Structures are given as structure tokens and as C-alpha cells.
């Protein structure tokens, strides 16, 4: 079984994003970029399935600017066998990304796609569900446990009040939540090996996908800043302030 793992290049989660002075977006020039943390979890899960012999090949895919190559190399250093860069300088949206992925899933005849549940830049939490909708395939989002057996995958999902288990007939789509696994670090030899693994470069046009965004950004602004308050010396003072000053208890 071939697994497709879409990986996105985002601002590293340790960096505090800054809004550009002209309000057109968030500054990414000169900022440390990394693989979206949820996508590392998705890659790790695919690699574990391969180690168990369930999966035969892992293909990492990224849609975006040429620098997304770095992210694909990371995925291959973690264990993906090859990768596809779909180059575009148009702002990507879950709808257009899902259309690109649909075309690739059909081209590669992939029976399982594991995505991150959300990208930490745009926080849309949408791409996997949209891909499943476009393909008419079953979906299991926010996965915390994945078991593949006998042409089906049983997934435990994180939901608001607890957890839920669903069983999907393959082919299917899964999105990874934080507690699915602990992603491995790529070792130096594997990073070296990844340099030689194949990377195919195509464009959305090659797949017949129109990338025109449906959402346009009117402006991007800093949220109102919260001011640091005061430090108190005792529980007594805190309770008194909460009662008499803030009036919240």
C-alpha cells in the first residue's frame, strides 16, 4: 500500500510571528521555518506503518514555494521514500491544496493519506476533511491511535468530551492529532541519505488544478495586547483583589 503524506513548511512553532508593518500578512522573510509539527506526526505514523510491513511506499508531498524542498528532505530523512514538490507562488488554501492532493492520490493510486490535523500558521483544520470529501472517501480526523488490518483502519479520535472510535474501509484519509506518536529525529546518516532520494517537481497546472484563492486577505493586524498586571505577595491579597477590585468572585 502506498501512503501519501502532505507536509507543509511553516514558521517554526518556537518563533513568535510578527505582523508586517503594512498589514498585508505575517512576516516570513528571514524567519526560521520548519515542518508543521502535526505533519511530523503524520510522517512518523507512516514510517511506523512501513516498519510494521503494512505500507510499501511513503510519498511526501508539499505544495508551495521552492523552499518547501527543505521540508520534503526532512520528511525523507525521517523515512519517506520519495517526494513531490508542487510548485506555486499563489497563496495556498485548503480547497486548492485538497484539489492538488486529489489529483496526486489518483495518479499515484494511493490507498491511504495521512495529513496533520491543522497547520499551525493558518490554523484552518480543513485540508484532510476536504480531500476526503473531494475523493468521496471515508475520513478519520484528530487521530490518537491508528490500527490497519484486513483492508480496514480502526482509528481512535480525540473529540470534545473524550474519544471516539471509527472503522474505515480502505482507501481512506486520516488526520493526525498531537498524541498519535512522538516523531523521531532524523539521524545524520539518514539526512545524508535523504539527499539522494528522488524528488519530483511539478506544477498545479500539470495536474489541471486552478489555484485561484477564494479568500482574499483584506488586512492582517496584531491582536490587542494584554498588559502584564501586578504581582501579589499572598493568597489573602489575591482573594481580596478578586473580590473587591476585579469583582469576579
Amino acid at each position, binding site marked *: 500500500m502506498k501512503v501519501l503524506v502532505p507536509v507543509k513548511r511553516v514558521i517554526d*512553532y518556537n518563533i513568535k*510571528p510578527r*505582523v508586517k508593518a503594512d498589514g498585508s500578512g*505575517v512576516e516570513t522573510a528571514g524567519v526560521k521555518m520548519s515542518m508543521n509539527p502535526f505533519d511530523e506526526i503524520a510522517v512518523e505514523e507512516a514510517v511506523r506503518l512501513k516498519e510494521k510491513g503494512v505500507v510499501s511506499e511513503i510519498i511526501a508531498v508539499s505544495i508551495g514555494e521552492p523552499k518547501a524542498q527543505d521540508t520534503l528532505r526532512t520528511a525523507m530523512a525521517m523515512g519517506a521514500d520519495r517526494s513531490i514538490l508542487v510548485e506555486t507562488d499563489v497563496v495556498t488554501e*485548503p*480547497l486548492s491544496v485538497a484539489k492538488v492532493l486529489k489529483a496526486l492520490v489518483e495518479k499515484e493510486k494511493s490507498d491511504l493519506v495521512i495529513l496533520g*490535523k491543522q497547520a499551525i*500558521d493558518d*490554523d*484552518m*483544520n*480543513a*485540508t484532510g*476533511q*476536504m480531500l*476526503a*470529501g473531494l475523493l468521496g472517501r*471515508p*475520513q*478519520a*480526523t*484528530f487521530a*490518537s491511535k491508528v490500527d490497519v488490518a484486513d483492508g480496514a483502519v480502526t482509528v481512535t479520535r*480525540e*473529540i*470534545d*468530551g*473524550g*474519544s*471516539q*472510535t*471509527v*472503522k*474505515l*474501509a480502505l482507501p481512506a484519509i486520516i488526520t493526525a*492529532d498531537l498524541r498519535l506518536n512522538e516523531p523521531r529525529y532524523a539521524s545524520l546518516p539518514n539526512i545524508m541519505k535523504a539527499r539522494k532520494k528522488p524528488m519530483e517537481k511539478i506544477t498545479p497546472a500539470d495536474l489541471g488544478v486552478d489555484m485561484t484563492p*477564494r*479568500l482574499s*486577505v*483584506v*488586512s492582517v*493586524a*496584531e*491582536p490587542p495586547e*494584554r498588559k*502584564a*498586571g*501586578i*504581582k*501579589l505577595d*499572598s*493568597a*489573602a491579597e*489575591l*482573594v481580596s*483583589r*478578586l473580590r473587591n477590585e*476585579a469583582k*469576579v*468572585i
Partner: protein
Amino acid sequence: MTVLVYLDHEGGAIRQASRSAIAAASRLGDVDVLVTGPDAAAAAKSAAAIPGVKKVLQVTDTTGNSELAEPVAALLAELAAGYTHILAASSATAKNVLPRAAALLDVQPIPDIVAINDADTFVRPIYAGSALATVKSADAKKIITVRASSFDPVASEGGTATIEEVALPAGPGGSTFIATELSKSERPELESARVVVSGGNGMLNGENFKLLEPLADRLGAAIGASRAAVDKGFVSNEYQVGQTGKIVAPELYIAMGISGQIQHLAGMKDSKVIVAVNKDPEAPIFQVADYGIVGDLFTILPQLEAELDKAG
């Protein structure tokens, strides 16, 4: 314009977050609502009493299929013909279903809105709330999830909507609901509680985490947690507050032994009053806290309880 709101309910009681979604929807047009599940009839009755709701669409289902994204997304896509906007409160259910419905309609969804500028233009946080993007949709229909903490909920009584039964389509199949495991709690719901007491890594273990309960009891508070506390198994995942957990905005948020990383702040920094107890005076949580105490939480916790027990 008529707007459809997909409601979340628990055993027939409409969640407060869904009443916030109705408040947002009523800014856009007339409001119909959809309820699904084994208790749909009870939920429909509660929904019909919400002021401003015109019609309730009810899907009674005992097969478990209404727990699945595939048939519910197919239903929303079918119903979409009669509506300009489809909304729901941002919840695990809505996030599972709405983007799929949007794909079926060839629409780019607009998740987690915090403000409505006009029928096409909305404000939503990006980068864990580090920035607010105002976006304009070119799609004919809008599929939107609403951040409940940004819209005051409508009342729950006073309306007289009509109720109509609709059928759940089969969907593409291939997906089977096995089970749901809900953790039982007598406490208020995290997302609508007036007071939230959260614990982090500083609680050290699951046994200690229970020490937050007496404080929460005294304040009528819900209990929350940082990701570190959840990852280490002190409490289960539904307690997590933050970018990838629940978004809360209570009157009072008390953070015990939480450092205040941006991903945690994303889930609570809109709280009215924030209190932090942390032994590290440099912890970033103090940058957003209205009141802070630098000290050992295990010493301060019993002192707080004792102070609260004194007549106010």
C-alpha cells in the same frame, strides 16, 4: 438571506456555544437550525424555544451514522441549496464535518471567525492568535465555524420555531461508527464556565492534579490543563486548553504551574481576568496575568482555599 446553523447538543440540551453561533448567524439573516442524533427530538424542542430561530430541521438517528462526518456532510451539502451561509460553533464535531461539506460544494471554508464585517467579510485569528486576519470570501455560499467566546449567546427561551423531520443521506459509505467514550464530570463545561482553574506541568502528576478540585469546587469552576499536563497523562485530552485544545474566555482564569507558552495563551488570553501562580518569576504567563503570585503552588493552593472560606 437565510442561514443554517448546525447545532451541538448533549442529550437534547443545546450547548451554549451553539447559541453563540446562532447569535452570529442572526447578524447575517433569518436563522434555521439543524439537530441530529438519537436525542434529536428533545434537542429540536429546545432549539425551537430559542428566540430568533425560524425553523428546526431534525434528523432522528439511532444508527450512529449521525456521529460520522460522511453522511452529515452530504446532508449539509444537500440542504445548502436553500441557504447563503452555513454556520456552526467551532467544536470537534463541526471541524470534522463542515470542511467536508464545503469540499462537496466547492467552497473554501472560513474557520473560527471572531467578528463579522459584512456578509462576505470576516475576522479570524491565525498563527495561534498572534495575528487577526480580515478575509473576504469570493464563494457564493459561505461555510463558517464560529469561535463561541467572541459572540454573546442568544437566550434559550422565548422562541416558537416550527420543527421538520429530514432524512440523513447514506453518504459514500466505508465508515462505521464503533463507540464514543465520554468522560463524566459534574463540573461546568470548560468552554462556557464562568471560572476555569487550569493546571500544568507544575502539578507534577495526576494525583496532585486532583488538588485543584477543592479550589474549583469553591469557585464553581471548570478544570482545564496545559498540553504538557495532558501529554504526561495527568488528565485526559478533553481538558486541554490552547491552540490545539479548547478556546476559553471565562470571567476568571487561574493558571497553576503553567509556563504560558504561546500555544497555551492562544486558548485563554481573552479571559477577562487572568491569575497565575508560578514559582518562576520569569514565566511568560506573568506577561498576560492581571494578578500573579510567585511561589510554590502546593503552598499557595491551601492558602487560597482557606481565604475563600472566610466570609467575603
